[in-house]
Structure formats: structure tokens, C-alpha cells
């Protein structure tokens, strides 16, 4: 659209200039955009549907020879132009990098700042109290920028109006009696929320910084790090609970389903009454990285035959580091399984998106099918873990 704008401006000043816009698709999506495009055509600006393939300088008159296909008439155009202007796509400004690193904001795969949720939290970021608006979040025009900036301002007022700052209760915390101050958990948190309290000599989670991913938990071998709402005790109990009823010749697949994506897709699958292996048991977790190797091994010990760790697709995740950190835990688990002679393919990590129902079914049913091929885990092997 901004090519159309610049062309219109030029045509207004110099009507005698012949202007051609080569495009692949006109996306005049906003209010009044279609009219604007029509106006440009009325002014005599010509639109050729086709991407310019070649540019070359004519050595004699220094003009640009352009080659492209007019895909509407399926004919090739080869003509000279006085000036060729490249319409580039918008990118995040370079100077933004500094502030991104400083605030530890996340970028989405398109290179712009990632909002906390594309639909429900379009101006929030992963960090409470930091909001985004305008072209920092994605290419947009002036009215959209103003609207988004107004929304961000209004959102910030919600925080300012509160006498006390409220945080989500689902956060990591430290059991001071279990913590021996070894410091293994420091530097693990991507948000730098864990610090050592110099006075007590024990680790501490700064609740204002922690965003509740749980990725730090596997780093503490003493299980002194814990998580409100998904405590270690609760997790062990949940695992035991889902394996309790397992009969002699049955199998059990445990899905550790992250709250945002995997749990929702499982929910949607259930609502649509789509069938998946009845050997499956789902345990909800804040993110797959919360599940420590100890918990996974405990599950196998207690009778699980397979584990699926589900998390959001990295590029749209609130916790983009989750995959990497889960895979670290998986390595440890795989080592242990190997030494007990258990097939490592029994535990997988997978990225789910809340709408990809069939993908969820494929992964779960695929695992159930595979289990039939593998040798059953012997009790002696389970004891070795």
C-alpha cells in the first residue's frame, strides 16, 4: 500500500509521469484502502501483476531495462524505465535490539516483538508492566498504531491504578529448609529471577520477575525449588494417581500437557469426541520444562510405558526456551533408560498448537501403535531406574 501512496503523491505533482507498480497481490485490507487503490488506478497508475525478474542497465542511455511477466495476460514485459524503486518490507528497527536485550523481551519468528497472546493479550508482553504498540509489534498503518498505542496506555493504567502489584500465583519458590545454597539453579532462569540471598545463604525466587515456566525446577537436585500449584509432591501424587489402576497387561502413556497449548488441544479433541488411545493419561503442567528427569523416571518406575511431553510451538510460546530445556532433561532420562535397557523412544517431546487436533491424535496414537512393537518393560528394569 505504501508503494501506492508514493506513486499517488508523485502522480499528483507530476501527472505526465507514467508509473507502473509491479505486485504479486494487492492487499488493500484496511478501511478506505480499496478506495485508495481505486483512486490510484483512476489517476492512471498501472498495476502489473508479476514480480520483477530482472533489472539491467542499458549501457547506451543508462536507463533500467526491466523484465517481468504480466501474469494476468501471461505475457512477458521487457521495457525501459527511468527509475525503478524497490518496495521493501518493514523490519523491526535496529535500535530496538538494545531495549529487547535489556528487558529480555521475546521476538516472534517474523522478527517483531512477541505479544503475550496474539488474540487475548495483543499489547502485553511476557513481562508484566511492559507493553508494545505500533510497528514494534508488526507492520501497521497510522490508525492501527494509534489504536494499539491507546490500548497499551489503557493497559498500563490498570497496573498503575493498583495500590499493590499483583502477580500470578503460579510461580516458582524455594523451600529454605531443603536448599543448601549450592547455587546450581542460578543462571538457569531465562528471566534472571533466581538470586542467592547473601544473608541466609539460600536461593530465592524474585516473584516480580518469575513468569512461571518452571524451567528452573530440574536444575535443583535437592528438589528445594518448587512450584506453586504444581508442587513436586503434587506431581508425584498425580503420577502415582494415573498409574494406580493399571492392570497387569495394560499400557499407560502419560502426557505432560502444558497449560497453554497441549492441554487445550487435548480438551478440543475431547469436546469433538475424537478417539485416541484409551491408555493415555494427561497431567497438566505449566510447561513441559517443569518436568524434571526425576519425575519422568518416577513415572517409569511406577508403571508408565511412555511419556509425551507437550509444549507450545516455539515461535508462539510464552516460554520459547521450554523446548531446549525440556530436551536437556530428556537427555538425562534417555541415559538412565538406556542403562536399564529400556527403549529411549518411549519418551518424546512434541510441539502442539491448540488448533492442530489431528496432529495431537497422530502423536498419541502413533505412540500407542509403537508401544505394541517394543518389548514390554520388565519389573526388574523398572526397579533399576
Amino acid at each position, binding site marked *: 500500500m505504501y508503494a501506492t501512496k508514493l506513486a499517488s503523491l508523485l502522480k499528483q505533482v507530476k501527472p505526465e509521469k507514467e508509473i507502473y507498480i509491479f505486485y504479486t497481490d494487492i492487499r488493500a485490507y484496511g478501511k478506505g484502502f480499496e478506495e485508495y487503490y481505486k483512486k490510484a488506478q483512476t489517476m492512471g497508475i498501472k498495476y502489473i501483476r508479476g514480480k520483477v525478474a530482472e533489472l539491467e542497465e542499458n549501457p547506451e542511455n543508462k536507463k533500467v531495462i526491466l523484465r517481468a511477466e504480466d501474469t494476468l*495476460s*501471461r*505475457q*512477458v514485459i521487457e521495457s525501459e524505465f527511468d527509475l525503478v524503486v524497490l518496495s521493501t518490507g518493514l523490519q523491526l528497527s535496529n535500535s530496538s535490539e538494545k531495549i529487547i536485550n535489556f528487558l529480555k523481551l521475546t521476538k516472534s519468528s517474523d522478527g517483531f516483538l512477541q505479544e503475550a497472546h496474539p488474540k487475548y493479550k495483543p499489547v502485553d508482553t511476557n513481562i508484566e508492566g511492559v507493553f508494545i504498540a505500533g510497528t514494534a509489534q508488526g507492520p501497521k498503518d497510522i490508525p492501527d498504531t494509534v489504536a494499539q498505542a491507546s490500548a497499551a496506555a489503557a493497559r498500563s493504567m490498570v497496573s498503575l491504578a493498583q495500590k499493590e502489584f499483583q502477580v500470578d500465583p503460579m510461580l516458582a519458590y524455594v523451600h529454605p529448609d531443603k536448599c543448601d545454597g549450592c547455587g546450581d539453579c542460578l543462571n538457569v532462569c531465562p528471566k534472571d529471577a533466581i538470586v542467592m540471598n547473601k544473608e541466609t545463604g539460600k536461593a530465592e525466587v524474585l516473584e516480580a520477575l518469575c513468569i512461571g515456566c518452571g524451567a528452573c525446577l530440574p536444575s535443583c537436585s535437592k528438589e528445594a525449588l518448587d512450584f506453586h500449584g504444581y508442587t513436586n509432591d503434587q506431581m508425584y501424587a498425580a503420577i502415582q494417581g494415573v498409574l494406580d489402576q493399571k492392570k497387569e497387561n495394560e499400557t499407560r502413556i502419560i502426557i505432560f500437557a502444558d497449560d497453554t497449548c497441549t492441554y487445550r488441544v487435548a480438551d478440543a479433541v475431547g469436546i469433538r469426541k475424537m478417539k485416541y488411545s484409551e491408555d493415555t493419561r494427561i497431567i497438566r503442567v505449566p510447561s513441559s520444562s517443569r518436568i524434571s528427569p526425576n519425575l519422568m523416571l518416577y513415572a517409569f518406575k511406577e508403571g508408565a510405558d511412555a511419556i509425551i511431553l507437550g509444549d507450545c510451538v516455539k515461535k508462539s510460546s510464552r516460554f520459547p526456551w521450554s523446548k531446549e530445556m525440556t530436551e536437556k532433561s530428556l537427555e538425562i532420562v534417555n541415559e538412565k533408560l538406556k542403562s536399564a535397557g529400556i527403549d529411549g523412544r518411549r519418551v518424546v517431546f512434541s510441539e502442539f498448537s491448540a488448533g492442530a487436533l489431528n496432529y495431537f491424535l497422530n502423536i498419541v496414537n502413533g505412540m500407542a501403535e509403537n508401544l505394541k512393537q517394543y518389548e514390554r518393560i520388565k519389573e526388574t528394569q523398572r526397579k533399576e531406574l
Partner: protein
Amino acid sequence: MPKKIVINDASEEFLRKIIELSGEVITLCDQCGTCSGGCPFVEEMDITPSQLMRKVQLGQQDVLESKTMWLCATCNTCTVRCPRGLDLSKVAEGLRQVVLRQAIDNLDLNNYPKEEIKELPQIAIIAAIRKLTS
């Protein structure tokens, strides 16, 4: 290999001329194809009405060799349907004018013996003069 389109002063001039003769803003045509889809004569045409529009937009003078503008019956089916409000029959007329004004088949009565003219139907002669001289 089909002929390449060349955009130059001549092609621009051709487009300008057809716009002037037809009074239609031809650059507005979006190539949606509604005109061709509904034209009752499209099967007889060598290029469709929307192709004709595109050729004019690109200033391709070979459009004058096409049969389409002669087959257009000014039925105005396309005119009422065009989402850009273009009257394609006027464009066809503009193109016909360009050919006619070249006076290729000009009927000059001086070239015919008086006796022969007397034999010919009067109405046909007048119609031919009108049509072929424009």
C-alpha cells in the same frame, strides 16, 4: 515464444488515445473477468473482453487485429456487471474508431462508374459510406 510487451511512448500514447475516444478510465480495470464470463458472444471471439482490456491497458496495438471489438454487439451485459463501472462496449467502439479512421476500406464513389452506382441499393451505399469512413 509469445511476443514480448514493450512499454514505451507509443504504447502510452495508444492507451491515452483509447481512453480519450471511449471516455472510460481503462486503467481502472482490475482484470476480474466478470465481463468475459457473462459476454454472450465470447465463444466467437479470439480474445476475451477482459483480455482486450488488458491489451489496451498495456498499450498493445496488436489488439486492433483482434475480432473481439467487431463482435461486440453493445449488448451492455458486461457494462451493468463490471465492478469497476467500466463500459466495455465504449472501449470496443473506441478501438473500432481507430481502425475506421485509417480509412482502409474507404468507399470513394468517384472510383465507380455512374451506371454501376445506379444499380446498387441506395441504403446499402449510404450505410457503407457511413460505416467505412466514420
